[in-house]
């Protein structure tokens, strides 16, 4: 071995062959595979709502989905994307207070969404719509539940970012820790628009 290699304390820095940040690209690819998971659930939805014989959708046994409540909930979730964007813009401009308030608001809005969603489940179950009652019920709970699970994961990420922002982390130069979970949260929001449109509106 050459003397030079003995003194190595780490790998030589890799050449950056793309302007895209690796973590950003990784998150985008992860989101593509997430979209495909939703795609499979939408396939199930499509088959049960459209393809199967005697296909029908809500209202089932006189129980309809609470479109009004869900619309308000949609507005809550979408506004959390705005507050998140505000937080991200703030840290880019070096405004730490904006980051903290923005992250906190985003987290609270997301948590409210999840709370309303769980409430909706309880009401529907009380009216006799359960995953076990019909295939339509199965698809409804599976699709919204899959999305809810993503919201829960997103909230965990947001909680970490919020805590770290209150500890004074992140600078205008170093804020990938806000950006990358932010992409995930925006994805969760956009996915909800698709879920909401197909399940409640159409």
């Amino acid at each position, binding site marked *: *071995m050459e003397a030079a290699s003995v003194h190595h304390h*780490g790998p*030589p820095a890799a050449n950056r062959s793309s302007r895209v940040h690796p973590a950003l690209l990784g998150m985008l690819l992860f989101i593509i595979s997430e979209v495909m998971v939703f795609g499979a659930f939408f396939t199930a939805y499509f088959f049960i709502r459209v393809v199967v014989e005697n296909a029908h959708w809500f209202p089932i046994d006189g129980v309809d989905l609470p479109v009004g409540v869900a619309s308000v909930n949609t507005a809550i979730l979408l506004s959390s994307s705005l507050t998140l964007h505000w937080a991200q813009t703030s840290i880019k401009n070096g405004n730490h207070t904006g980051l903290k308030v923005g992250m906190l608001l985003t987290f609270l809005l997301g948590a409210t969404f999840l709370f309303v969603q769980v409430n909706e489940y309880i009401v529907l179950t009380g009216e006799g719509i359960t995953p076990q009652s019909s295939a339509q019920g199965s698809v409804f709970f599976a699709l919204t539940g899959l999305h809810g699970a993503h919201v829960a994961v997103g909230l965990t990420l947001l909680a970490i970012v919020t805590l770290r922002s209150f500890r004074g982390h992140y600078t205008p130069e170093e804020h990938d820790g806000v950006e990358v979970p932010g992409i995930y949260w925006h994805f969760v929001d956009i996915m909800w628009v698709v879920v909401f449109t197909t399940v409640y509106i159409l």
Partner: protein
Amino acid sequence: MISHLRAPGWYRATFWTLVSLGLSWAILWAANGFDADAVTGIGFAQVALLAFPLFFLGGLGAFDYWFYWASGRPTRPEDHSGHGATSWQDYFRINTDHKVIGIQYVVTSFFFMFVGGLMAMLMRAELAAPGRQFVDPGAFNGLFSVHASVLIFLFIIPVFAGLANYVLPLMIGAPDMAFPRLNAVSFWLLPCAGVIMMLSFFAPGGSFASGWTAYAPLSVTAPPGQICFTIGVQFAGASSIATALNFLVTIITMRAPGMSFFRMPLLVWANFSTSLLVVIATPFVAASQLFVLLDRALGFNFFNAAAGGDVLMYQHVFWFYSHPAVYIMMLPGFGIISEILAVKSRKPVFGYRMMAFSLLAIVVLGFAVWAHHMFVSGMQSWIRVPMMVTTAVIAVPTGIKIFSWLATMWRGVLKLDTPMLFALGFLTMFVLGGISGVMLAMIPFDIYVSDTYFIVAHIHYVLFGGSLFTIFAGVYYWFPKMTGRMYNEKLGKLHFWMTFVFFNITFAPMHLLGLQGMPRRVADYSEQFATWNMIISVASFALGLSSLIFLYNMVASWRGGKRAPANPWNALTLEWQVSSPPPIFNFDHIPTVVGGPYEYGVPGAVHGVFESPATASAEARQPAGAVSSTAKE
């Protein structure tokens, strides 16, 4: 003792696995209203199988860094103590070195090859003669199901990931993968998935027996062993998605200076295409098994026709993954063959760009053919026609590859050593498997041979004669690089010829048996098929023995083979320009790529040089400005 349980490693992993079992029980206990008698064994198994791999990985230390980072505690500085291997024990811990992970992958998946192969031996013993010999029909169903699942999900897919893990960063001039810790997680998910699938043999009612396709509603009503497939696939799938993501980011962001996309070796192109397929398609198989699990465990109605569910939906979702999966199991092999044929023929790859584009064409077309697996399923019959056409169209990019390989060898100076023999064996066998594939794409023919041994013959010509031959070729080709030792050439050739001959005696007659109507997936058959089946069984045992030669050659050569030089094949690609095995961080300096990867036979051709881009471009007579900028360094 306590310090053992606190430090990452096997003690903590065992401890946390036990904790996960207790936790699973406690969750069910709480969910059942704190009634211990209401907790069922199957319920416990479902929760525990989902939970234990995560706790095991956590105990082993796979998530330590992330937990430290997330909780804001100081992360250990990158001292690279997790890098490299100095003893065999380093292969049994969380290791972030792509070279160590590559070997972990390859060795683990070959272990599963022998497990799956032994099951095939048992099946052939049962099928040697009509009537019942060794196993009852139920156990036979379990054997072929686990055989296929293990070999697909735990051998062919991961072994390619393992080989690429080892050579791909070297090939593109990167010091490691883009996400080394994620890489370690993807590997360690694999043994977990393997343990889960093997556990199914201990389940009441036997192992899962619904075939590797696990069609609903059979899989929804099957005995509890089924959940081992349902859950095992989740972890194998998560592992392969994480690896694919890692490959894509590595290829896109970490290429050496000068390594443009069209200077990448075709193995890199192949893994790029494969990773696209994995990222897009694999979530579908995870979802299909999730539906089954929800139906089984929580009484959902996805596949319950009485409640408005649709069983055919399962097949659509499943094959939307599992057809691209056959390309996931084939494209990396295409890459290996391109490397070996160019090096061993001493000629540039013919039609390099078309080779790369045809890979991408296969990726795109691969998503438009899934329903050709469902011609007799009772779906809307009109779907069959477009699926037949697209399936036949895939023969075009595949044909481009075959003819380009032939043209690569044309008037080359062929060196017929073991990797080359396996590459040539692959070419011939894969063409045969491809031709029977085009036959099967034709609706009338497919209806005629559906669920016969013709299908078994086709899939084995493609996956054994195709994928496995490329795997053997790749393992022999990179064995000197991975171990620093040469394998025994005589034993390698013996291995090839035994494999090649007995492979054909085993699987070629199955075409005839299928045309005569012998049904697959049945433990018994009528007297008229007895002669051929006896011949097949005897040949298959010889085929099984040939793999022992391979095993001996690998183990003995690794321990006491001749020392390998850095570049025993006189190859141009970057992995051969470093020592065998490569230094711990691959390169002391990131190389600069100045030419194509396959300029064999071109006098003075160089692919990469170990200089900074500025010096390298100065040598290539770039403008004088580049030279003066070097002078400042």
